[in-house]
């Protein structure tokens, strides 16, 4: 009885179901079966016999570990520095005026900083022999963190042992998969690596173009409205440099801050060049634009520029900066900064606080160099007039970047032979996000005299006229 009832029941289901639904369901069943079988087919492919495996392995021919390198590759040839780096430098046997080292404030020549660093060496030895967690934290590290935080008027600073790793570790400490980061397209390579490591969605906006950024933000807002659930979980970041290493331009900070507020972004600012050079007290672009530093979520900077040592730091509120002590990879897993170099940074801060006039001096030097260097006939200057980093490009573009680089290298070589040290900026063109136009990167030193700038101008002008 039950069997007949069941049979009738099934019959009625079939009769009552529309034909198209039946066809669809049949197709569905067939697809499921096909998928299952296909899986198994894949599985069968995986179960190779031992002989087959051996044959594949015997046939396998890997590529060489690395490709051959052209012996003429421009990066293979480096210039040898034969003296202490200062306002003057001896390069490849030529005594030169130095316009190539990022020693903006001239602290590399400072005897007092050197003495204090050596004193520190005599107390702590050279290396720290351990990461910060495992007895690599010395009182100098804590002291430096304290001093930086106080100097910047923020709650907490955290010191890294390498400038490159600072921002490259800071970004992935916060931004994770699924988050969105808005980035200026001209950011330096360290930031690009930090973005890669974060695995977030990266949105590039045109260099220093706030309108383009806003356009992208509006697009994002529209997408969010379609999927509000996801929007509630997506963190948004905005990453910019104070002064761009690759262009010498200053970021439009007030506009960025306004957009940050409007679209609820978190703003990370890399001040590797602008820290210790911009603003009346050397506190960077925030001071230059008179922007409240609380508006910026995290400021990071290398100490390899104005502070003339090694390493870097991040500074921000306790809530933000402290997090890196447990998730900044370059902080946790690396040996801490050698104490003598930490001491050099503390001594540099001492100078910052004691003699704030040095920043004005540097800015006026940058300005006068900018005015002078804008007048080259065959080269064009790029960069903000106050920025200590400027770029010289060929006024007349060559066919390709390789050719431009060759010409610029020739200019740099001949300038060095005539006593002015300038170098073409080094890039790994094939690894940058997009190829960067070759240039000569000029670094301004506070100790330059007007006469020095005039000499440098004469030399570069006559060399470039001869070469180009």
């Amino acid at each position, binding site marked *: 009885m039950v069997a007949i009832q069941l049979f009738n029941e099934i019959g009625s289901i079939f009769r009552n179901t529309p034909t198209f639904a039946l066809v669809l369901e049949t197709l569905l069943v067939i697809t499921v079966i096909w998928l299952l079988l296909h899986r198994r087919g894949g599985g069968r492919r995986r179960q190779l016999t031992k002989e087959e495996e051996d044959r594949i392995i015997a046939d396998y021919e890997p590529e060489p570990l690395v490709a051959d390198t052209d012996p003429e590759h421009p990066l293979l040839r480096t210039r*040898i*520095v034969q003296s202490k780096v200062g306002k003057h430098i001896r390069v490849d046997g030529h005594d030169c005026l130095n316009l190539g080292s990022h020693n903006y404030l001239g602290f590399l020549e400072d005897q007092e900083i*050197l003495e204090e660093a050596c004193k520190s060496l005599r107390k702590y030895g*050279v290396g720290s022999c351990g990461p910060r967690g495992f007895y690599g934290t010395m009182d100098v590290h804590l002291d430096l963190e304290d001093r930086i935080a106080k100097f910047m008027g923020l709650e907490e600073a955290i010191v890294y042992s390498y400038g490159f790793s600072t921002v490259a570790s800071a970004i992935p400490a916060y931004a994770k998969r699924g988050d969105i980061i808005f980035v200026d397209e001209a950011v330096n390579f360290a930031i690009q690596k930090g973005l890669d490591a974060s695995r977030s969605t990266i949105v590039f906006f045109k260099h220093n173009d706030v309108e383009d950024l806003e356009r992208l933000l509006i697009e994002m807002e529209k997408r969010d409205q379609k999927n509000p659930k996801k929007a509630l979980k997506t963190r948004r970041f905005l990453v910019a440099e104070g002064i761009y290493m690759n262009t010498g331009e200053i970021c439009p900070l007030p506009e960025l801050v306004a957009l940050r507020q409007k679209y609820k972004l978190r703003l990370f600012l890399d001040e590797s060049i602008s820290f210790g050079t911009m603003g009346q007290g050397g506190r960077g672009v925030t001071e230059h634009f008179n922007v409240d530093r609380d508006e910026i979520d995290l400021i990071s900077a290398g100490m*390899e520029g104005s502070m003339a*040592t090694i390493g870097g730091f991040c500074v921000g509120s306790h809530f933000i900066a402290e997090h890196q002590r447990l998730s900044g990879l370059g902080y946790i897993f690396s040996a801490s900064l050698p104490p003598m*170099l930490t001491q050099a940074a503390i001594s540099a801060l001492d100078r910052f606080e004691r003699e704030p006039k040095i920043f004005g001096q540097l800015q006026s030097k940058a300005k006068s160099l900018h005015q002078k260097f804008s007048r080259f006939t065959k080269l064009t200057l790029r960069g903000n007039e106050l920025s200590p980093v400027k770029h010289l490009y060929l006024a007349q573009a060559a066919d390709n970047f390789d050719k431009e680089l060759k010409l610029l290298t020739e200019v740099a070589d001949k300038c060095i032979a005539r006593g002015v040290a300038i170098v073409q900026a080094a890039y790994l063109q094939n690894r940058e996000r997009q190829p960067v136009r070759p240039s000569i990167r000029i670094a301004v030193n506070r100790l330059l005299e007007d006469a020095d700038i005039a000499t440098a101008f004469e030399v570069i002008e006559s060399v470039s006229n001869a070469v180009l």
Partner: protein
Amino acid sequence: MGNFDGDSGTVFEQSYATTNGNGKLANGNGAASFSPPEKEELLSQRKFSAPAYTEIRTRRCHSKPTNDAKSPSLINYHPEKKSTSNGHASALSESKPNQAEGKLSPAEEHRQKTSFEEVPLHTACLTYLGFYLLMILGYINQLLFVPKVATEKGRDGYVTLYDAFESFYSRYVYRRIKDCWNRPICSVPGEELTLKDRVTDDYGWSFKFTGTETRCLNLGSYNYLGFAAATGRCADESEESARQSGLAFCSSRCELGDNEQLRELEAQTARYFGVEDAIVFGMGFATNALNLPSLLGPNSLVISDEKNHASIILGLRLSGATTKVFKHNNMRDLERVLRQGICHGNPKRGGQPWDKVMILVEGIFSMEGSIVRLPEVIALKKKYKAYLYLDEAHSVGAMGSRGRGVTDYFNVDPKEVDILMGTFTKSFGSAGGYLAGSKKLIDFLRTNSHAHCYAASISPPIAQQILTSMKTIMGEDGTDIGRKKIHQLARNTRYFRRRLAQLGVITYGHEDSPVVPMLVYLFSKIGAVVRTLTTRHIAAVGAGFPATPIMEGRIRFCLSAAHTKEQLDFALEAIDEIADDLGLKYSRKPRDPNPVVY
């Protein structure tokens, strides 16, 4: 061990008694020399009355009866006192730092010397139970009390910045033993170090300095060959270099950051390993993280040991290569993964063969204390035409009769390893890292390495420290100091590891590895041991979840050539007592009843 004093001929004028951990002086034999140090002793004990150093009460209030097999009757050493250093007074004995003793096959011998003793079942259960208890208490704590942490200001309506579990874990679980890490020191991290004492009034939310200092025996720093020093040849030459060339270049190697010294360092490094060329970088972590991406592409397969360091993992992530993990130091699993990987090709490209397959291992694994089974890895690499990347961060200098790392230890031609990587932070007492190999490889790196092109070059005094210490190890300074240091480290390692095994605690890793993890399993015991060791003037490192699996909380000791037998005995004595008090003697292996000969 007993005839040591006779050998060295060093007479210790002062003999200090040890304390048994309660602040009471132990029943020492040298009663005559008591009175002056006694006061200091008590003073130093009082420093620890603060909560952060709350000591674990020992069960026995009287001193342990001296047992000549276990502990020396008199410890001639205490870090709070300036001990007369005996340097390398002990003459070279016949114990060899290298293998090749028995008639076993090298692979078998290596296996026998490596120990990963399994955890007793009840300990495993207790460990999990303890951990979950901590978590539950943490959750209750979170519900009942408002956390005393900084909150974000002026960011209302923003998506929360942190993952909820992460902040919970660091606030309510990690905080309980937070004082065991990031301890500030204010001295050379040599064989001894000076801790800046700190206390917490609020259970680990914040710390305050007491203004006092504690001298501790240093078993925490990676100072394997004892080159961390503020005096002596290395420091002198570093200072000279700083005065001559300045503290930095303020430029990358490719711009204006190269000089003769760095070239010399590279040539010296290449000579040290017996390979064609080498390239150096300013940071060890960055050496892995910024060079692996240049060597690997999206169609590369990487076979990586499961215990590899974070810098390697970051480098692999940046490279975009496919990574497969094999079981720690397990050659059979490595072969299985290799076979499978090569046979099936790149699944993302429909089974197309890989451009290259690279095996990534470390010389000494820093958390496990094990040594890579290099000859077997090399055999597999050849069989499957893979490339080998060897990270010798901990093993360079510390292993092998000439201190040249695991290739030296196994007497393998360094050219068999495609890429030798290591750091200068540890054995050389400096900072930075290197990659060494064929000229072709290094030329490629010079034109493709991120760190070479963009990051700052090594500071001159830092480079000089490496050069001087490397020359010392190689004997190019005309002395045998380097050779003695290597020997002393090998000897210290054997002695310390054997004595620990005799005590009955579980240690991981290989007999010859100077990284000695001692398993304590329970999360809370990590804190207890580190704190109690501090009260006994010993600085050691603890590691727990998430750095290790939940089950495997451990204390790590790093030995150094600068340690003397007295210092090791002093540490072993303390460890013995702590292990008794906290029940750390988990080992079920038979213990060697004979005294261990130094």
